[in-house]
């Protein structure tokens, strides 16, 4: 019982650590110039495209 409790405590510690990291880096420190905004938008679109391709491939391999 004590071991399970300790494991749960360790896990909660891990999640707390992630929460702290999220808080620490909540706001981007880089100055949001037009170049930065356009680059981040392009990256988002690129990743969505890649994600869509991966999903399509996954469906193609498993269902079709």
């Amino acid at each position: 019982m004590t071991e399970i409790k300790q494991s749960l405590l360790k896990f909660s510690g891990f999640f707390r650590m992630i929460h702290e990291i999220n808080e620490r880096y909540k706001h981007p420190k880089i100055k949001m110039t037009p170049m930065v905004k356009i680059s981040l938008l392009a990256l988002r679109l690129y990743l969505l495209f890649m994600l869509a391709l991966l999903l399509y491939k996954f469906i193609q391999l498993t269902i079709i």
Partner: protein
Amino acid sequence: MSIWSKLYYYLHRVLKFIKIFAAVAGPGIIVMVADNDAGGITTYAVTGAKYGYSLLWFLVLLGPIAYCVQEMTVRLGAVTKRGHAEAIFDAFGSFWGWFSLLDLAITDLLTMITEFIGMTAAMSIFGLPVPVTVLIVWIIMATMILQGRYWTWEKIALVLCLINLIYIPAALLIHPSVSDILHHSFIPHIPLGGFTNDLFFLLMANVGTTIAPWMVFFQQSTVVDKGMQEKDIPFGKIDTAVGSLLTIFVAVFLVVVTGTLLYGVQVDSAADAAIKLMSINPYIGAFVAIGLFDAGLLGAICISLASSWAFGEVFGWAHSLNNKIREAPWFYAYYFFTLLVAGTVVMIPGAPLVLITLFVQVVATTLLPAALVFLILILNNEELMGKYKNTTVQNILNFSIVIGLVLLSTGYCLSVMFPNLFT
């Protein structure tokens, strides 16, 4: 001042320069030579067998491109004293930070498996069973970091870099035509048969193997762990330039070997090339196999450290090779975790190794644009970089390189996912 005094003064300056360079050099050479990992060696072996010397000019062209990208990590690391993962979290917030970190972790773990595939394939040529090779690799990689000193690790890594040059004597043994090599290296041309899908695939594969996302993370973390200062940046740049020269040497000489002896022969991998070379010349076959093992080992060492450093930076764990295991337990735990997982996967009978190898390309392609774009954007932040920020010329050059790399690596990824797309 007499001529002897002038000569003494000049020699003193040269010696001083060499001394400082020897102290600063390391990260650039290691990352660039490690870039020719097991996957890279396979790509070069296949390139030579399929197109002979015809694509040497393309490999030569990739050297300066790799230099331009990696040089930015030297400046960023030396100025901010932060690794790339931490720099992304800090500049772009937690969303992009977690995306980069987790993508890096997955890419690195999968790439580690491909390094183990390369190493075990190379050693099986000498009759060594897979578990024995894995055990040997585990012992070497553990020994390298257990002494808790960055310098010792770096010296061992540099020795491995030196062994990677084994393709040079291998090429010299077959007495290739120097004029042919020079002609194909410096005069760009499309090989016989024109611009086919196969050629496009191989060009993209060569690009994909020359610039990998882990390299950006690795070199920046190494620069920080080594303690390089702003004054060391010029030496760091020379170090990177020497490294890019060596990486091209390795690529060119291996293409010369397979392009001379295996031209027109179907080659599927570097191990396959080594086996076929054994029947032509046992020494050259053995050299290629040793080089493949060394490339896999060097790649595995750098890739596992790239992830460990990244996690250490973000989670705030002690994350230096100068720390003993008890001082940085999580840093080393992650290093051993990737090592054990990759080695174990290779030993599983019937593991989907081909699928893993292909999947690496897909995952790496999602991370590469982000890592490179973040690098350039941070390098343009005057508040952070001061006088070391990118100049207009560097921006034009680097943005062109990044756009080109993203297009080619995406094309490669697409052709891996949909093999009939470009036919």
